[in-house]
């Protein structure tokens, strides 16, 4: 499962989009929010969370990984 972004905390810096190695997160310029556009392509590397300056990102593993 992909990262979960807390939009209340997010300041809209766009770092998670820029740094994601898999092009999973796309910053939506119109709505000014980061969108997890390709959740199935997340590698769970944690880069988005590591570099989010305000700690708005958490990594949640889904049942398809926890209980397979």
């Amino acid at each position, binding site marked *: 499962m992909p990262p979960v972004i807390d939009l209340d905390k997010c300041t809209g810096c766009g770092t998670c989009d820029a*740094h994601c190695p898999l*092009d999973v997160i796309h910053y939506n310029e119109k709505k000014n929010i980061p969108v997890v556009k390709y959740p199935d392509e997340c590698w769970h*590397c944690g880069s988005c*969370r*590591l570099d989010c300056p305000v700690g708005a990102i958490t990594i949640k*593993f889904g049942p*398809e990984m*926890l209980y*397979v």
Partner: protein
Amino acid sequence: MGKGIEQFGEVLKTDVLIVGGGLAGNNAAIAACEVGAKVLIADKSSIERCGAIAGGVDHFMAYLNTDTWDTREAYLEWAGRIARGAVNLKIQNAVFCRELEAAIERMDRIGCSLRQPSGEFYRTTSFGLPGPYMINFNGKNLKPLLAKEARRLGAMTLEKCSITNLLTNGNGKVIGAVGFNIRKGNFYIILAKTTILATGNTNRIFQNPTGLPFNTWQCPANTGAAQTMAFEVGAHLANMEIVRITVVPRGFSAAGLNALTGMGGKIVNAKGEEFMFKYHPMGNKAPRYKLVEGVMREIEEGRGPVYIDCRHLSEGDMKHLKTTLGYDKDTLPDFIEQKGIDLRKDLLEIMASEGMQAGPSEICSSGIMIDEETKSTVEGLFGAGDCTDQMRCSHVCTTGGYLAGKMAAKYALTFTQEEPSVNQVKELKRKVYAPMRASGKVSQKSFEDTMRRMLWVYAGASRNEYSLNTALEKLDGLEKYFNEIKAGNYHELMRTHETRQILSVAKMMCHASLARKETRFGVFHRRTDYPETNPEFDGQIVVVNTDQGIKTFFNKLDYSTIPEP
């Protein structure tokens, strides 16, 4: 106006082009800038986090001359044993040994020291090592720190750029590359005096045990772009037959095994038996291919599930382990926690990971054959990192990446900039964007899934002449559908090119596997029709693209002497 190549896209000029801004690519950039060359790094993501070590690394292999096992000679002797038939000791000496001291110093300088805060090295043993060569360190920020240094030295970057093809002059010399922006779609024509390919190993090539293709041990953005591009221009590739597999927590194909076994974690079966000693005298610290074989066999023969047991570790070791695990795979501690597991009290279930192409050992990979100067067999083209046949893992990608940068810059400063023909650029552009106009009768995802499932059955951890020929026939059949894959946007166009690269690597793999008529590295190349290792195959199978299709030949390697420093 508009008669030249500029009519097709944005033309960029550089001395050294580095394709792939991962660990090797950044070290190459630093070196090339230091030599004084103009450097451009192109990557599908940003050089701050892209590639295998996005979320960090935790160990770096090195000999430090403290004891008889801790020398260059001992390291090379071990290398020649563990990777016999794949590693070229002369080249390992050049890409690793000669560059090691400078690399350790460089890591100190950029702020990612291999030392503990006390100034000491924390060293452990795993994977069949003759002594504790693995330096544990905090490599969580190695990538952004390397990127910072490369930028400080003047390296330019082209980010969110997928490179698809190399450009050549009339004599077949590589003179740059083309690619496109994965968001906006603009076409880039990059003219470079020398080009370093550094796009990592090949992933998403075999069925994933969880059924999730991006749940891979190595970075799923690495799909054999370098191997494919080099092959297309006639470069020689080696070690392509090898399937690499590792042991990972069940459900999450995450790195971290070295931390677990290095700290003394025991691998046990359902009965609690420490079974690895049955398969190798070093038990839990056996070479990786032996660990994989042990885990697979215990499960196949009905003694699974298989676990890693860390309950006996001292409080201090457990603390060290927990921090190190997060250094290697940032989200592994979250996974363990979300599974409700406490390593002090519970066992962690493990499994054999998906297969991938990444060489047989921790020192050399599968891909572009390089020489002692990291040159490929094609003029103007260099290789660095996991996409080459002689570099692998953080230590060799750091040292060898740096050497590649130095060499490519040195040659670049003696070469002139050349322009490709208008026709070449026009034709490449047409090919690159063809999936945007395709019918869409076949989806990229199902195409790739079919290929993965098929390859695991016929060319995976168990293969023979018939199964490999069947795999090749099926690849040919499948390939006929490739042109039906439609990319709806440029992100999908990137994925479609990745699928094409995986297909191309798969073919090379099958041909090389057919040529290696023996079994070597356990399940990493298990030919059921030739179950023994044959010393006559102490060398590499080399793959090359010819007018008559893929050809292979044998390159005998010498392990009788350790090369001079």
